[in-house]
């Protein structure tokens, strides 16, 4: 019973780190290529975690991110709640699929997130439709395998201790 709890706390620490990484300044020309750290972590958590991440937690996390990033309050909450819901529905199906298919699924999940963003941007009256809007989904899918291996190692290490 002790082990899963430890694992959970590791995840929460990683989520905090992910939020900080989202805030960390990048050079101007790299900014568009920032991976969606928190989304990737959330996907991993619901794929490998011992119990599902609650929607309420994700909602609050999203609100925190919105305040930190001073985006429209509720935007990240909406994105991540939908993401978690989809993950909870399909995680059992993609858990054992091939890495390539998993990558594709991650891409589609992130793409869905970008569509939510696009929807909000269009409602606000911004021109949102440029290529850079979609870049984080591509980057996220590309680094997913690396992240998956890295996080699995990390989890093993923390369990051994």
């Amino acid at each position, binding site marked *: 019973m002790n082990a899963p709890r430890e694992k959970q706390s590791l995840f929460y620490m990683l989520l905090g780190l992910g939020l*900080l990484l989202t805030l960390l300044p*990048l050079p101007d020309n790299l900014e568009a290529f920032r991976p969606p750290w928190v989304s990737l972590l959330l996907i991993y958590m619901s794929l490998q975690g011992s119990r599902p991440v609650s929607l309420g937690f994700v909602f609050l996390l*999203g609100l925190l991110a919105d*305040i930190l990033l001073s*985006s*429209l309050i509720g935007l990240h909450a909406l994105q991540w709640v939908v993401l978690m819901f989809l993950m909870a529905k399909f995680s059992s199906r993609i858990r054992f699929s091939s890495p390539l298919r998993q990558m594709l699924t991650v891409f589609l999940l992130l793409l869905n997130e970008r569509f939510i963003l696009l929807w909000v941007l269009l409602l606000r*009256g911004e021109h949102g439709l440029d290529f850079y809007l979609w870049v984080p989904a591509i980057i996220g899918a590309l680094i997913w395998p690396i992240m998956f291996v890295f996080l699995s190692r990390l989890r093993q290490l923390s369990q051994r201790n």
Partner: protein
Amino acid sequence: MSPSINRNSPSLFTRNGFSTARLMAYCLAAVLLMALDQRGAYNQKVRASLATLVSPVQMLVSLPVEMFEAIGKNLTAREDLQTTNQNLEDRLLRQQVKLSRLSTLEDEARRLRSLLGARSGLRVNTLVAELLHIDLDPYSHKVIVDRGQNDGVFAGMVVLDAGGVMGQVDIASPETAEIILISDPDHALPVQVARTGMRSIAFGTGDTSILMLPNVSINADIKQGDLLQTSGMGQLFPAGYSVARVMSVERSPGHPFARVWARPLARLDRAREVLVLFPEKKTEKPTEGNTVDSAEDNTESAALPSADPKPPETDTSAGSDNR
């Protein structure tokens, strides 16, 4: 709801995760929050306290970059050189802004000598603020600076950089302030064409390099390259600061209004140091904000933006620690 129960009981929380009802509830809550935020329904106090809550984190993230920059400076120059350089840069910034205002006033004096008397003198009190080294949501059109209420900054103050008007203070927390840029689609700025004096309103488009003037009449004298300045209408932005240069004018015969696109002169996406402008003593009475709903894009050019649901700012302790 432990996983073992989930796996074989078709309860409310089905085996495939959460119930759709919960998803819907949370989505609705999120959309509601967004709509309220868009409408500006959160009052200043709530937003300021939220900002206060997270500002330590923001400063923490900003710290390593600041340190790296400091180390880099130390390596390249001696400390005294560095401080004098800093001072000079500050002075340059301030003087450039003053200069742009001066030339504007000269133009104005030539045209409207008689009316100029109505306006008070040139002295402006400013505060140099530095942007925190953090990346906000790339679609938020906000920046955070390292000066807050403790430095006399309050919501509604005008922010400039060396090029021109950058935006206004949206939320002031004790240590930091959030600035809404003129490129935010919620932001409207009363401007006038420097060449002719024609007044209009510049709206943000959500693109940091484009402003739009949707309500210029089709036969108005405006052309590519015209300089747009603040007009001083609406009391919030003082008159005469450069805002943008007209990029293109689109006149289609079917529409009563020409569509004018302009490029902001302030470097909205890359300025690192900004000037916060203290209002002149006379205009310190509660002013109306310049944020309007984008639904009101079609107001006529004579109408001023006035639909600001925020309560008027009453903190006027500003002018005390200016330079």
